[in-house]
């Protein structure tokens, strides 16, 4: 999912940088309004959490292991705007520190995984959960939110790859990502729909179930309980605007 340098043409990565900057500015403004002076350490914590979720490998059928991107579960727990900042910071650190994802592709990677994924996950969760307070419907909604969030991010990434031969080639020579939409889209969609999205959905569901069992007040995507019922809810969480 992390696009490296060299795959996107400037006519793709520059507008995506601009789009990401716009989303980030909106998110920071929103957080500043709701969290005041607490926003810096709170967002640092949220970013570290979203970075570290990727460190947890889970066994998957076939004898191998995989990890979730985590943007879906972070959005369900902390809210989509917090997730936008948190996942972006995690992606920037990954690019700067480990070379995971390119410098020119930071805007694209953040749009795919920090904008598309958290918002799609929260919308899908709300859509499928309805008004259910708990139980299988909530868990199914959690699975689908992780699944759909990653699928949407993968399709967006595939489109970014797939348009490169159309907008940047010279005399039939591909200058950037060489695969057109007819290849990039089905390949990315298939591998994600059949494997990676299932892992993402599974992790989202299991982690949310754990949170709902042990600390339901800290989950953004669930209706707030009365203060007597949710004594452990943090003030920062309470201030996050739905």
């Amino acid at each position, binding site marked *: 999912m992390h696009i490296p340098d060299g795959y996107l043409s400037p006519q793709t990565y520059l507008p995506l940088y601009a789009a990401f900057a716009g989303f980030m500015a909106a998110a920071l403004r929103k957080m500043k309004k709701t969290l005041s002076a607490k926003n810096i350490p709170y967002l640092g914590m949220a970013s570290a959490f979203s970075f*570290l979720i990727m460190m947890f490998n889970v066994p998957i059928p076939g004898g191998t292991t995989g990890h979730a991107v985590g943007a879906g579960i972070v959005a369900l727990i902390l809210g989509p705007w917090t997730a936008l900042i948190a996942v972006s*910071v995690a992606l920037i650190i990954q690019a*700067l520190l480990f070379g995971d994802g390119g410098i020119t592709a930071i805007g694209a990677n953040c749009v795919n995984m920090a904008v598309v994924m958290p918002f799609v996950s929260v919308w899908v969760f709300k859509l499928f959960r309805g008004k259910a307070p708990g139980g299988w419907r909530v868990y199914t909604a959690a699975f689908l939110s992780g699944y759909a969030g990653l699928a949407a991010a993968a399709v967006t990434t595939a489109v970014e790859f797939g348009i490169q031969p159309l907008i940047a080639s010279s005399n039939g020579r591909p200058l950037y990502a060489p695969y057109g939409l007819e290849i990039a889209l089905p390949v990315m969609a298939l591998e994600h729909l059949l494997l990676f999205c299932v892992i993402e959905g599974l992790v989202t569901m299991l*982690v949310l179930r754990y949170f709902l069992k042990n600390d339901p007040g*800290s989950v953004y995507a669930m209706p707030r309980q009365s203060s007597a019922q949710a004594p452990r809810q943090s003030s920062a969480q309470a201030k996050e605007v739905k």
Partner: protein
Amino acid sequence: MTFIDTSITKIAEIVKTNYVQWETARKNGLFQKLDPRLKAVFMLGCVAVISVKKELPAELAISGFIFILILLSRLNLIRIYKRILFFGFFFGFLIALPSALNVITQGDIIFRVAALSRPYHFWIYTIPAEIGITREGCYGVGILSLRVVNSVSVVLLILNTTHFFELVRSFKILRIPDTFLMIIILTYKYVFILSKTIEDIYLAMKSRLVGSIRNSEIREIVSGRIFYVFKLSRMRYEETYKAMLARGFTGEISLNAGRGFAGRDIVAGIALAGVLIIIIIL
């Protein structure tokens, strides 16, 4: 227990990378002596040039230029090029390799792979009667692999010669808000602290789990650990916020812009910009 070993390896890699970069950033090399702001601007300028160049000789010239800079910065060539070539091979060459075939990139076939009795058409896809590697395809694979190699090289050069906090702070020159830079710095610190905690969690888990264990149980354990990390990071955040308040934090963030550029930085800046301009003209 593959999942435990994989996780431990991954976390150990974070801690190791941090330590190695701290060490190499203190060496007495060319890039270590330069102002971080100059290095940040050079890094961004260089990756931009790498991304716009469309000719193999230009990309090869950039590879040579970065190699010289790595050499002058006294970095461990084997360690750094092992990483560069790993990225170049997996994220450049291997992914792009199928595009060398005429099924994807049309052109002059230079190596025949297979011959079919007739071309096959399926929906929007066409498989030609003669399948082979094209000159145009090879060119595309080459340029994409070199772009990945060059971009990773320049990023690793900067990372191994600059302390991470200084690098992030230097992005102030690009008018990135201080609030955002502060969040990145704080996140880095949290990640470093919590990585060690997670490593301990996994080591404890490894010592407790003996024999076979069902995958569903492992997933349950991992979910519990993620919850624990969330609680721990929230606790750290509350503590950090209290500590910041105790030191007079009012919510206003202003990072120190740093000293002015030294004569050495100006000379190096002109030289680096000159080389990049020559490469653009190439």
